[in-house]
């Protein structure tokens, strides 16, 4: 084990300034009442007081709501394709929560698999994640049911834990270790600090009270896959909007669209959602025209199909889909009420 460091909370601004010289530092930011990970303004660290989690998940920093894939232009010789300019500056995300860091690890599986996704991976591979443990999880959080602890993470490069007036800093990856080696102004953590951190982690863990039972969840879902009455009942109040999927840290579905104005055009990719009726529409038919099929797809994709393929549930219990749902549709209630006993 490498030695652990610590930093005074009031010195976080200095730390971020230092890192800003090397990285584009992103930190929790409140704009028009919406918490996002946005470029740090160079001074404001008030987020340490209000930040619980962002509305827009950090996936948006790697897989944005929309991005240009390439542009094209036509001249006498035909079409020419050009890639957008890549921002050479590496991102450092400060304050990512363990649930959202885990979500990125889950997204990596899809975006790295077989055909690498160059847009996502370019941003992802160059980024540094600095995790910040939760001290005040929401009542909608249920990360502990998915093997995540609100103040512990192996999916970040560095992990910070609140130990009163200071943060304990743990190096999780080699990338994190290198960064710490180059960062001056940190103090060595004492055994007392480490003991405090351990206690803080436990306290946070116990604050997550919402639970789901994931044992045998794949089999349960498989068993009730064809129970149309159940899914219809579950889906009744869903309004088929895209909130739960767009703001889910592990949802990655996207759409691809072109635009052409006067021989010049571009291809964009943007978030798409399995909740939308037209998502699967083909000219002659639509396999998921009915709402209950779409709701089933969302639940099963996360808790049945993704585990079948990648051996991990594509949900990290961040609770955004519960908090932000216009009709308080609650995935934890649904999983509780599956009409099978295994």
């Amino acid at each position: 084990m490498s030695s652990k460091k610590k930093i005074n909370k009031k010195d976080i601004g200095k730390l971020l300034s230092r890192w800003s010289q090397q990285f584009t530092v992103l930190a929790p930011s409140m704009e028009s009442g919406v918490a996002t990970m946005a470029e740090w303004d160079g001074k404001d660290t008030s987020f340490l007081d209000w930040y619980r989690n962002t509305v827009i998940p950090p996936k948006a920093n790697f897989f944005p709501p929309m991005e240009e894939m390439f542009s094209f232009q036509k001249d006498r010789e035909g079409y020419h394709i050009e890639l957008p300019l890549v921002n050479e500056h590496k991102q450092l995300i400060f304050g990512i929560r363990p649930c959202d860091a885990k979500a990125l690890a889950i997204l990596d599986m899809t975006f790295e698999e077989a055909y690498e996704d160059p847009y996502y991976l370019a941003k992802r591979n160059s980024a540094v994640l600095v995790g910040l443990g939760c001290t005040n999880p929401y009542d909608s959080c249920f990360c502990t049911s998915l093997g995540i602890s609100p103040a512990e993470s192996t999916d970040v490069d560095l992990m910070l834990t609140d130990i009163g007036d200071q943060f304990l800093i743990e190096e999780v990856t080699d990338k994190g270790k290198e960064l710490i080696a180059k960062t001056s102004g940190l103090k060595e953590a004492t055994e007392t600090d480490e003991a405090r951190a351990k206690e803080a982690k436990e306290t946070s863990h116990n604050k997550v009270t919402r639970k789901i039972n994931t044992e045998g969840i794949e089999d349960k879902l498989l068993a009730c896959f064809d129970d149309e009455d159940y899914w219809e009942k579950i889906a009744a109040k869903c309004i088929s909007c895209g909130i739960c999927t767009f703001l889910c840290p592990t949802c990655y579905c996207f759409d691809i669209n072109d635009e052409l104005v006067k021989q010049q055009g571009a291809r964009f990719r943007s978030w798409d959602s399995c909740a939308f009726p037209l998502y699967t529409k083909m000219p002659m038919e639509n396999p998921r025209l009915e709402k209950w099929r779409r709701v089933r797809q969302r639940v099963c994709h996360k808790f049945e199909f993704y585990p079948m393929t990648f051996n991990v549930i594509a949900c990290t219990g961040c609770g955004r889909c519960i908090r932000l749902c216009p009709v308080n549709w609650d995935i934890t209630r649904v999983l509780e009420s599956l009409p099978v006993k295994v």
Partner: protein
Amino acid sequence: MKGITDISHRRRFLAGGNVYLPHIVVIERIIEENPGVRTFHFNFKDEKLREEFTFESGQFGEYSVFGIGEAPFCISSSPTIRDHLEFAVQKVGRITNALHRLGVGTELGFRGPYGNGFPLDFLQGKNLVFVAGGIGLAPLRSLIWNVIDNRDKYKSIDIIYGARSPADLCFKYDLEVWDKDKTVNMVTTVDRGDETWTGRVGLVPKVLEEVAPSASNAVAIVCGPPIMIRFTFPALERLGFTPEQMLTTLEKRMKCGIGKCGRCNIGNVYVCRDGPVFSYAQIKNFISSEY
């Protein structure tokens, strides 16, 4: 299906290493199959790629009409033809309408080949029964020519092909050739005839049962509209075919073609990535509910 099949060996012909960037291809010839369907012959603009490009019957490409968008179509020509590629398009939506407006010499984007293709190793030495409806002949046509061009590797060939009306039949020039080929049993049928039609009248699954090909050492390869597929599998079962002996190529809405954008799944299987060719055994659990 537990786990994930490794398809990284298929990662070839990437434009600039970026799987989403299309190659430029040029339309060389357009054949009007019927009022709603056109076949496009095309070639890569890049000469080196023209030489090197290979694919398997049953694989598909993502074709761009720049400024309108991208859509998947199977490669309908046989890999045994080396001087050009073909795909067939039914006019049904925004991109297909745009394709039908294009002329010879137009540049398109092409990404691919994607998907698994037909399992030739499995098919060799078998009696083959091709069952197709409408434009569903397009992917099978690639395989049929492939098989005919390697005739000695396969046993008997039955082709049962149907369309709504005589005017809706596609690839008539192929049907004529196969009809004359003594090593092929070609049966063409239409749902409704017209005053000039002297051939068979009847729905494909029904005609299939009348033709009654033997299931012994045979594989049936089925492609057509979903409604036809739904009735063809039970017909084949009655003829003694096991689910492993039935192959089909599925159509779903696809955007990325590589199992990422999410929309073409059946269970944990992505049609674009793990298909589009499946055995009935692989998909029968989902046939009733999502296909």
